[in-house]
């Protein structure tokens, strides 16, 4: 600490002996620091600050208002509430991503309840909770609703365990609610009219309401009344029980919307006169009234003849999600040719390479593309291929993030993309046919992925597929020093691949591998790095119990979980461990592990 840190409060007094004295130097420092640290918002900066000294650690803890915990088991709730006293927002993540693909047994964990209880006591001023892949019960939602008087935002992504009743409690108790977003959650089928739980009088502060994943029908009248009373509502995502006719009415009530998730873009079946009347409604007019829409999604049960209704807003769209709409190239072309400003586009592969070409022709500003398979079986005819990928790489030079499902691919197309799109941060290629080589040369896909890590200097997330040898992983280890997330499935020749990755990728945080021949020797080559990672997942590989025990022994602060997907106890299948999931933790093994999970 240099003397320059002194402020006007630090007036040195000259005593008889000529010494300086400053009253309560630590207190002064902390006051100054706290005033400065309030402005620090980045997690990384804050973590760095907290490591400087004890007093900085304290000051930082006092001023941190946003909490992010990437793995809910890395730290116990009580330790968090003990250190940070003034939290206003919490972002908590539970299960690892492979849980989305049925690779994790149900009841594995990631329960929000202990966190709910801890925070209810400690953070009375909490305003915002975001949860991803956690199990949240209706009771938990009740705790949230009743404990935080100024509660404003709840965002649940890929969560489960709650139903309409829980949503209803939030709606009725949280008078300051601004954001209620349910994103791809598994919502329990409870016959309960949660929409009517919102206060029905006075203006509502609601800015965002997303319930597209709620499978039961909503009380439309209540919804319409709510929308009418929410002048600040900018984001509205409806579920498939809202028909296009109802959407029309809502759109007219909320012309200020910027983000709209349509319900089912078709009419319920009505015979006789009513049907004709509905057909005459000018849906284009409704969309034209919403001049501010820049983000469009939904389109469940799409009746393609209604698609032209969205033309009036296409020119302003920055984000378009058609990934639930089975449309062909022609139908897409009619829409996409208006979308010059598009930055984010999600689609099904039903649009074929031809559709992707149309995207490449128009969307010069595209940053993110996701192409999902309409038919997920391995021997299906692939409507998209290397042709589409190449077209995108030539047309969308600013691409930063891509997720591409296909049946066939070539190294040449991937290499071309690595050169044409140097800004790529996320590259996820899923060749659905396992072990598929380059379609034309018959070679492994090593060179393609190698080019991606070599040429895309900003790459932080990579998912590989197709036929791959150790060479691919040597490239990744050699060039992928910024890679934080790596996903591997059905790949490689042997242990060396894993060794290359663990030794080379110094920034690796999340490693998820399935069905690849990596064994103990590969696993042990990462001992120096596991403490720096958020988690490692290895399932159906060739690690043995001995190998896992060795890791657990050498790294005591690592929680090493071993289990079987089918919940058989022991965790092993034959000689090998079925699933290994390990992560660092400040508070040791979790207390809520079910029977079939063995913690070594």
């Amino acid at each position, binding site marked *: 600490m240099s003397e320059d840190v002194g402020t006007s409060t630090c007036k040195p007094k000259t005593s008889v002996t000529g010494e300086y004295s400053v009253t309560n130097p630590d207190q002064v420092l902390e006051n100054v620091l706290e005033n400065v640290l309030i402005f620090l918002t980045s997690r990384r900066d804050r973590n760095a600050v907290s490591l400087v000294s004890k007093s900085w650690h304290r000051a930082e803890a006092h001023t941190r208002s946003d909490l992010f915990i990437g793995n809910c088991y890395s730290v116990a709730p009580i330790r968090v509430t003990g250190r940070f006293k003034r939290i206003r927002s919490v972002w908590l993540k539970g299960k690892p991503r492979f849980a989305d*693909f049925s690779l994790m047994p149900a009841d594995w964990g990631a329960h929000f309840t202990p966190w709910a209880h801890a925070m209810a006591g400690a953070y009375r001023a909490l305003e915002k909770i975001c949860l991803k892949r956690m199990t949240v019960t209706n009771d938990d939602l009740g705790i949230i609703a009743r404990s935080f008087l100024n509660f404003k935002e709840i965002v649940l992504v890929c969560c489960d365990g709650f139903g309409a009743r829980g949503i209803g409690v939030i709606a009725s108790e949280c008078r300051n609610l601004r954001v209620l977003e349910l994103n791809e959650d598994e919502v329990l089928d409870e016959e309960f009219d949660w929409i009517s739980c919102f206060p029905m009088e006075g203006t509502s502060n609601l800015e965002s309401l997303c319930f597209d994943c709620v499978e039961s029908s909503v009380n439309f009248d209540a919804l319409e009344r709510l929308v009418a009373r929410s002048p600040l509502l900018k984001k509205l995502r409806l579920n498939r029980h809202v028909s296009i006719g109802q959407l029309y009415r809502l759109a007219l009530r909320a012309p200020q919307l910027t983000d709209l998730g349509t319900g089912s873009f078709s009419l319920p079946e009505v015979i006789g006169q009513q049907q004709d009347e509905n057909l005459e409604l000018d849906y284009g007019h409704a969309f034209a009234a919403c001049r501010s829409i820049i983000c469009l999604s939904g389109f469940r049960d799409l009746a393609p003849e209604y698609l032209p209704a969205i033309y009036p807003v296409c020119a302003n769209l920055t984000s378009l999600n058609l990934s639930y709409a089975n449309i062909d190239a022609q139908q897409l072309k009619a829409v996409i040719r208006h979308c010059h400003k598009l930055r984010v586009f999600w689609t099904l592969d039903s649009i074929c390479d031809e559709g992707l070409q149309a995207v490449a022709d128009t969307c010069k500003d595209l940053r993110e593309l996701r192409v999902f398979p309409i038919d997920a079986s391995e021997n299906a005819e692939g409507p998209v291929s290397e042709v589409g990928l190449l077209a995108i790489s030539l047309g969308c030079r600013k691409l930063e993030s891509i997720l591409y499902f296909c049946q066939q691919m070539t190294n040449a197309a991937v290499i071309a993309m690595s050169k044409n799109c140097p800004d790529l941060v996320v590259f996820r290629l899923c060749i659905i046919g396992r072990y*598929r080589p380059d379609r034309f040369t018959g070679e492994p896909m090593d060179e393609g992925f190698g080019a991606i890590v070599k040429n895309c200097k900003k790459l932080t997330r990579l998912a590989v597929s197709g036929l791959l040898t150790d060479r691919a992983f040597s490239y990744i280890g050699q060039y992928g020093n910024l890679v934080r997330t790596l996903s591997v499935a*059905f790949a490689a020749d042997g242990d060396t691949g894993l060794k290359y990755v663990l030794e080379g990728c110094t920034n690796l945080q999340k490693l998820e591998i399935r069905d690849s021949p990596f064994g103990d020797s590969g696993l042990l080559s990462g001992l120096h790095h596991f403490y720096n990672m958020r988690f490692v997942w290895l399932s159906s590989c060739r690690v043995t119990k001995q190998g896992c025990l060795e890791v657990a022994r050498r790294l005591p602060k690592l929680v090493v979980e071993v289990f079987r997907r089918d919940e058989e106890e022991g965790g092993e299948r*034959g000689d090998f461990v079925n699933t290994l999931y390990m992560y660092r933790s400040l508070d040791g093994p979790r207390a809520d592990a079910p029977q079939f999970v063995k913690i070594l």
Partner: protein
Amino acid sequence: MDLNLKATELSLALPGTDDLPEIKTTTTTTSNQIKTNKRSSPDIDASVTDESRSAPTPKAQVVGWPPVRSYRKNILQGKKVEPEMGSGMFVKVSMDGAPYLRKIDLKVYKSYGELMKSLEEMFACMIGLYSENDGYKGSKHAATYEDKDGDWMLVGDVPWEMFVTSCKRLRIMKGCDARGLDL
């Protein structure tokens, strides 16, 4: 070092399928493990039994592959089923006088009896099964269907299996109108 005999092996499989060479076979085999070129046992559902060299890649349902969220898969699968009206799965059911149509999945039923019962419940009316001798037993409505050729037929004439595959939509007519369909 493996001789990699697989590389020179002749097979009838298409290029680019799982039977490609280069990958060594696994050393440990258990009765559960599939002896293909996968080194460890992936999670394969019981639907896959044995493999034969000359058969194309088994349509095994590998768990969690491709990595598409079940949320998304369910939505898309729902859509795949519905357009197949021609093969008689989901069909629209209308009843004269009712303002809304319904939709039912014919695959759910195993006989006319089950279908009729369900329709009765749905429309809360009496629909009798047509029989050669009695016509429609004094009921006020008759169930008819449109077949693949676009013709309107009386429900009950053809064997159930044939009906399921040829029915495109159902219409419950007023009994007096149905008599005209007598051949």
